[in-house]
C-alpha cells in the first residue's frame, strides 16, 4: 500500500492506494493519529485508489472517525467502488460522510 499526504488550505488529505490490509494498519493508524492531532479538524481520507480493504483497515477508519469526533472536527472519505460496497455492507455509511471524488470532498469541508 502507498501512502501520500498533502494539504489543501486548512484541509489535510491522506491518499491511500493499493491493498489496505491488516499489515498496513499500524503505519496508517500512526499517520492518521498525528494528522488529526496536529491538524485543523478537517481531514479527507482518499481511498479512491484502494483495491481491497479488510476489517482491520475499517477499524482504523473508525478509530480516525472517533478521534475526529473528540476534536469536534470533520472527516470525509473518498471511496472506490470496492471500498464503497464494503462500507455499505457493514453499514459504516451511517456514520461516515462519503464523497465520490476528492473535489467534492474538499468542497464539502470548505463549506464547514
Amino acid at each position, binding site marked *: 500500500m502507498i501512502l501520500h499526504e498533502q494539504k489543501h488550505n486548512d484541509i489535510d488529505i491522506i491518499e491511500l492506494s493499493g491493498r489496505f490490509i491488516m499489515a498496513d494498519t499500524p503505519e496508517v493508524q500512526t499517520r492518521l493519529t498525528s494528522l488529526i492531532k496536529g491538524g485543523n479538524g478537517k481531514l479527507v481520507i482518499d481511498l479512491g485508489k484502494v483495491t481491497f480493504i479488510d476489517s482491520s483497515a475499517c477499524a482504523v477508519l473508525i478509530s480516525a472517525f472517533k478521534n475526529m469526533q473528540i476534536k469536534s472536527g470533520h472527516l470525509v472519505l473518498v471511496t472506490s467502488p470496492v471500498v464503497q460496497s464494503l462500507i455499505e455492507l*457493514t*453499514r459504516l455509511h451511517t456514520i*461516515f460522510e462519503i464523497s465520490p471524488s476528492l473535489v467534492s470532498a474538499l468542497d464539502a469541508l470548505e463549506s464547514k
Partner: protein
Amino acid sequence: MEAIIFADRNGQELLPLTNESSIALLPLAGKSILEHTLDALVDAGILEAHVILSSYAEKVKAALGHGERWGMTLTYSVTRGQESPVQELARIQKKPESPFLILRGDVIRSGDMKTFLQKAASISSVSVQALYGGENAYMVLCLDPLKANFDSLKWTESAQPLSSQASVDVEGVVARLDSLKSFYQANLDAVSGELNTLLIPGRQTVLGLTQGRCSEVYPQNLKQGVALIGSNCHLHESVELSGKVVIGDNVIVDRRATIESSVILPYSYVGELVEIRNAIVRGNDLIRLDNGAILKISDTFLLADLKSATINNSLGVFFNCFSGVLLLLISLPLWPIAISLSLLKTPRNPYSKYWLRGNKKELDDFGVPHRTQFQVGEWNVNSPVLRHLPRILAVVSGDLNLIGALPVSFEVASRRTEDWEKLADRVPSGLLGPTQLNLPVDAPDDEKLMSDSFYAAHFSLRQDLHYLLQSVKVLFSSRAWFK
C-alpha cells in the same frame, strides 16, 4: 427528464416496523413505499432516477435492482441519513441536467405528477414546489440547482409551514408516514381508493375484494367493506374480514379468525379464532392503533413470523451439539495437561469463571426474545488452546456454535448502540471464527467488532466451512499452543 429521489429517512418514528427495514421498503397496499414513487415517475415519463439511501441501503438495492422492472435506469448513493438536500446534491457524482425533478421516495403522494410538471414548466422560477391538495408533496421541479430552494424536501419530525417559494397546487393527497397511525391510515386509504393514483396490484374477484396471484381466498371471507389480499396468501374459508383490510404477501390466516380494519404485513401467521381489530400485525408483533400498545406475541398459535427458519435452526443446533461432543471426546487427553499446567502456574486459582452472552434465546416478560448468558471458565495457562478448552462445553450445551462471532459479555453487547455496531449481533457466537482465528487476543475492540461485522455481512455455510478448515490448519501451528 431525470429525478433525484431521497429515501434516506432514519425511520425512528415508525419503530418497530423499521428495526429490520428502511421506510422505503415498508409495504403499502401490496408494494413497497418507494415502488409507488417509481410507478408515478414512470407514469409521468421520467425513466432515469438517482436514489439516495441510508439505512438498509443494500436491501433496497437488492429489491429494486437497476430499475429494469419499470423500464427505467436507477443509480444509487448512500448517506448518513436525513442530511441536507443541498449537501446531498453536491455529493452526487453525475449531476442531473436541468430541469430535473427532486422528490422524497419515503412518503406517499397520490396526485397527477404529469399535471404538476406541465404547470411547473410554465412558471419562470429557479424551482417550483409541488403541493397536493394544498399540502407539501415533498417534490420540487428544479431549473437552477445553485439557486433553487430545497427546504421543502428536508425531512423534519413535524410538518413544516409552507415556504414562500413558487408552487403549483394539484389535486391529491400526501401521507407523510410520520407515525405508525399515519402508516396504518395510508394503507387503509389505499385499499379504499382514497389514494386513487396508486397502482394497487391484484385483481378484483368479488366486489370489494382484490387479491394477488396464487392466493387462496373465498368470496365469503369478505363480510363487509373492502380488502386487499397479497400474493401467495392462504385464508381459511371461515375467516371473516370487515372494514378496510390490507393483507400483505405470504400471509396465512387460520380458521375462524376475524380481521377488522387492520393491516397484516407480509410473512405473518394469524392463528385460529384470533380477532384482530384496528391493528398492524408484523410477524408476531401486534401494534394496536386504538390504544398505542405494541405487543410481542410469544404464543405461535396466535401470531407467528413465517420468516423464522425453524427447520434450519433445529438442524443447526443438532449439528453444533454433535460437533461439540465430538470435539470434547477428541480433546479429552488435553484436559489433564491443562489442569496440571494450570495448577503448577497458579495453584490457588487454576480455573476462573465469567459470563458471556450465548445463542440460546428466552422470552422476557413482554414476550421479546433475548439471548441468554452462560457461565464459562478457562484454565490459567498461556496456551490459547488449553486455556479455552472449557468453551467446548458451551458448544455441547448449545450456548455457542462451533463457528461464529467472538462471544462477548452482556456489558460489551449493551455498548453496541449504532446500526453498524449491531450488525455483528445478527450472527451467532462461536467457539471458532474469523476473530478468534485471525486477530490477536489484545487487538482493539473496534477491530474485533469489524472482523465480526465482516463475518456477519458475508455469512454463509461456505464461509463457515472455510473457517472450519482454517481452524484445523491453525491447530497445527505454534500460535495455537504457545502465546
